């Protein structure tokens, strides 16, 4: 077992973990942060996307021990009393159907807008290329990110 100390959604946690524990399982099973989901076994789908020290990462492809000392934001830490502008835009534009890809999609979109506050449609599609959606056909997801950008999301 390895001792780790991680800040998640503003709260600090000290824990002992097996080295093989994936960050996504640490978040879901130890901390109960089940807003972050697992959609694949191959690091392809992006459903598990969170921010680690301010950058989007696939939480299924990071060991909890690698995140030791780090600062993690999950979909559950995004709203601050009211919806984050990207969450509000997904609701407004109907940017989801089953909703399984949505936590990762929103975390990827927030990262994209932090680096590029006024992305073109192509830049949005490229910025979200690591996130797969089996329902929407992406159209309304792109619209939601455009709306959030126009509304000055971060």
């Amino acid at each position, binding site marked *: 077992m390895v001792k780790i100390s991680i800040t998640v959604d503003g709260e600090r946690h000290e824990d002992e973990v097996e080295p*093989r524990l994936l960050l996504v399982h640490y978040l879901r099973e130890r901390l109960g942060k089940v807003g972050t989901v697992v959609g694949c076994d191959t*690091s392809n789908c*992006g459903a598990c996307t969170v921010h680690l020290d301010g950058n989007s*990462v696939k939480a299924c492809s990071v060991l909890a021990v*690698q995140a030791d000392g780090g600062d993690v934001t999950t979909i559950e830490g995004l709203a601050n009393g009211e919806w984050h502008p990207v969450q509000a835009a997904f609701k407004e534009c109907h940017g989801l159907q089953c909703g399984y890809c949505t936590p990762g999609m929103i975390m990827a979109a927030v990262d994209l807008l932090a680096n590029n506050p006024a992305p073109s449609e192509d830049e949005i599609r490229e910025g979200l290329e*690591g996130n797969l959606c089996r329902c929407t056909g992406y159209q309304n997801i792109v619209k939601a990110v455009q709306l959030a950008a126009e509304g000055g999301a971060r």
Partner: protein
Amino acid sequence: MIPAQFDYVRAGSVDEAVSALAEHDEDAKVLAGGQSLIPLLRLRLAYPEVVVDVGRIAEMHGIRDDGSHLVIGAMTTHAEVITNELLRRHCGLIAEATETVADPAVRHRGTFGGSLAHADPAGDLPAVALALDAEFVIAGAGGRRTVSAADFFVDYLQTAIEPAEVLVEVRVPKLGDGWGYRYEKFQRVAQAWAIVGVAAAVRRSNGSIAEARIGLTNMGSTPIRASAVESALAGTGAGEVAAACEAAAEGTSPPSDLNGKADYRQHLARVLTRRAVTAAAGY
């Protein structure tokens, strides 16, 4: 899936990493960004007894100017490579190819050195390193040695790095005045991996190509230096590039898989080489 159990060593220095590896030899694996290794652990295609994390070794991070070369620390992430000014100025081909690697989240973790050490022939950076005559600085129990790109890529997923060695940094000659470059990649829309990729660096003088360096992605079990087409391109003007690029697939034996058969890949290599060279030469 959940990886098999392993012990974890977080190395504080290159020496610490090397001695941890030496202690366990074939049963230990280096962990860099984890974007290839962790998926393999999850699928239990890899099951090392010990994982040696080199992610926090300060010496292995960052890019520095060393006169004729840029020195890229093995742990420099794809995202850092893309935004680095030195690299964009002197080795822009690396930045251009790295922009096509995977997706933003994977690029935040995956590293330049990890991509080269992993040596997936479908990976984009091995062919680029080969085309640019990069040199690999490898640390082991006996000290450090430098291996040329031509000797580094040995076979499918196999490099000159021995089990108890660590890739510390990669030295890449700067492309000086007169050089142009292009990475051309053909892929399925929903998958970042190249079906075929071509890395081209071209030096023009007096209106024709004086020197061309071409590396091929996914055209064999290692990245390939396309020397036949390099010779054919020497001295060519704009009108002669297409004919010269017919030699691009010479001597290759690419894989056949569900994305394309070998002869189709050879066709792609010729077409993409023509496009890459034309763009690199500014024709």
